[in-house]
């Protein structure tokens, strides 16, 4: 018996080492290769260095920005608007979704109007928003919510409808109040749909806020990117583009954390 087990042990250890190598060393090597290639091509002027500053210069510009007051302001401006937009669109989308999900005739009545409004590219509203709301962060908030609301609403409606019929029957025979029914049956059955739509909304809201910052020129990451370009400082521009990417990754990670937390609470509560 031991004779059979023994030889597999070193093999497994070897396998683990290989996966660590594959999971960390391989991607790291690829990133280093890309950065090295970029550095080489720009230093030798294969890529015009006035458009593409070498990676090392971009990195230096990035470090420089940390001591400038522009960065915390820009980051703060973008992130506060983002959080507001995400919370509003998720809460609003879920609430309206529950309403339309429960009242079938109302949903059928409004469906074509929703289907028409949903694909309207919200950036098309920028000129209107500038005239009526102005050029403050409220405009960006409105645009982001308008875009993300539909992304939450449609899955929310489907989620409400996906509640198990037996569960609904049980709720009825136990004389659940409407609130109890929503809290204990409808919301849990919506969870998987909500998770996906929140993930979509995370990136949609960020895109629209950065767009608003670029087009309307309101303070934030997008504004710093365009300003760096018009000031002829490409290294700083790339530094801010990279920063917006990092912000995107961090935000996605954060949303996933919250999701996991909510899912675990819901899981223990459900059992």
């Amino acid at each position, binding site marked *: 018996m031991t004779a059979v087990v023994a030889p597999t042990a070193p093999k497994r250890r070897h396998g683990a080492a290989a996966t660590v190598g*594959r999971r960390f060393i391989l991607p790291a090597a690829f990133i280093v290769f890309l950065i090295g290639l970029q550095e080489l091509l720009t230093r030798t002027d294969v890529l015009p260095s006035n458009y593409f500053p070498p990676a090392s210069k971009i990195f230096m510009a990035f470090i420089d920005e940390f001591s400038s007051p522009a960065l915390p302001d820009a980051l703060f401006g973008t992130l506060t608007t983002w959080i507001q937009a995400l919370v509003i669109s998720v809460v609003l989308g879920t609430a309206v979704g529950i309403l339309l999900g429960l009242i079938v005739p109302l*949903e059928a*009545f409004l469906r074509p109007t929703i289907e028409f409004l949903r694909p*309207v*590219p919200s950036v098309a509203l920028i000129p209107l928003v500038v005239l009526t709301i102005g050029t403050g962060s409220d405009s960006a908030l409105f645009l982001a919510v308008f875009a993300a609301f539909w992304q939450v609403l449609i899955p929310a409606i489907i989620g409400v409808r996906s509640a198990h019929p037996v569960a609904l029957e049980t709720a009825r025979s136990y004389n659940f109040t409407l609130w109890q029914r929503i809290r204990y049956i409808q919301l849990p059955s919506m969870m998987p749909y909500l998770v996906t739509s929140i993930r979509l909304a995370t990136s949609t809201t960020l895109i629209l806020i950065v*767009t608003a910052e*670029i087009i309307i020129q309101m303070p934030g990451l997008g504004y710093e990117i365009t300003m760096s370009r018009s000031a002829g400082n490409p290294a700083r521009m790339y530094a801010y*583009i990279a920063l917006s990417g990092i912000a995107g990754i961090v935000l996605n990670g954060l949303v996933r954390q919250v999701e996991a937390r909510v899912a675990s609470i819901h899981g223990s509560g459900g059992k």
Partner: protein
Amino acid sequence: MSTLTATAKLNAAAKTRKGRLILGTLGAATAVAAWFLISRESDNPYFPSLEVILERAWEYWTTPEGVNNILASLRTLSGGLFLAIILGVVIGLIIGQLAIVEQAVSPTLEFARAIPATALIPFALMLFGVSDQMKIFLIALGCIWPILLSTADGARGIDKTLSASARAFQITGWKFQTYVMLPAVLPRILVGIRIAIPLSLILMVTSEMVGVQQGLGFVITQAQATFQILTMWSGILILGVLGFLLTFIYSLIERRLLRWADPRRDRE
């Protein structure tokens, strides 16, 4: 009692196809009528009446200039989407089938994807200047991610029985890719494209707002800057119709292609 049965009847009606159609038509008519009536007496310069907007839309968007602007927008949109689909599917198939490539590039992809596509507008402007290439580049760059990732997911999760039987019949290489892999992954590709379409519209309008001299985005920003509120509203209306038509036509194409990829669907 009578109200109760009426609600029950309405509920039942909303679940049938015909009932939904009637209710929906009623709803759409109500929405348009409400907009029409509420805005008719409007003296707010920013919210003109629907009647005048429609008149203006008919006047401007049927002139050669208006038609040219719509065509310019459609050209860049289709160019960008086409590039994104081709590149996304090809790269997605490679990444999804070669684990070693996936492991090497996935953190880099994760980062590139996280950059909001519009943040790259200044970068695209620097590369291509104010031009059609800039718009196409931007749309392709923004739309490639959902297609690529969805394709890669599909290719990675391909039915093991399917690929094993293909191997047993010695279907390999190009034949395997076109006759086994592509139809199997098609539903995932289509989902990716469905996510990419609204994104492509956003990128089209935005890129036209930053200096290109034609296209729908250009017309509405120009109209806003010169206080031609009616032209602006008519442009927004056209963009809404365009968005609706694009998603509608795409849903038809999608259904058709899905039936081709998996004829068993018909039996359901």
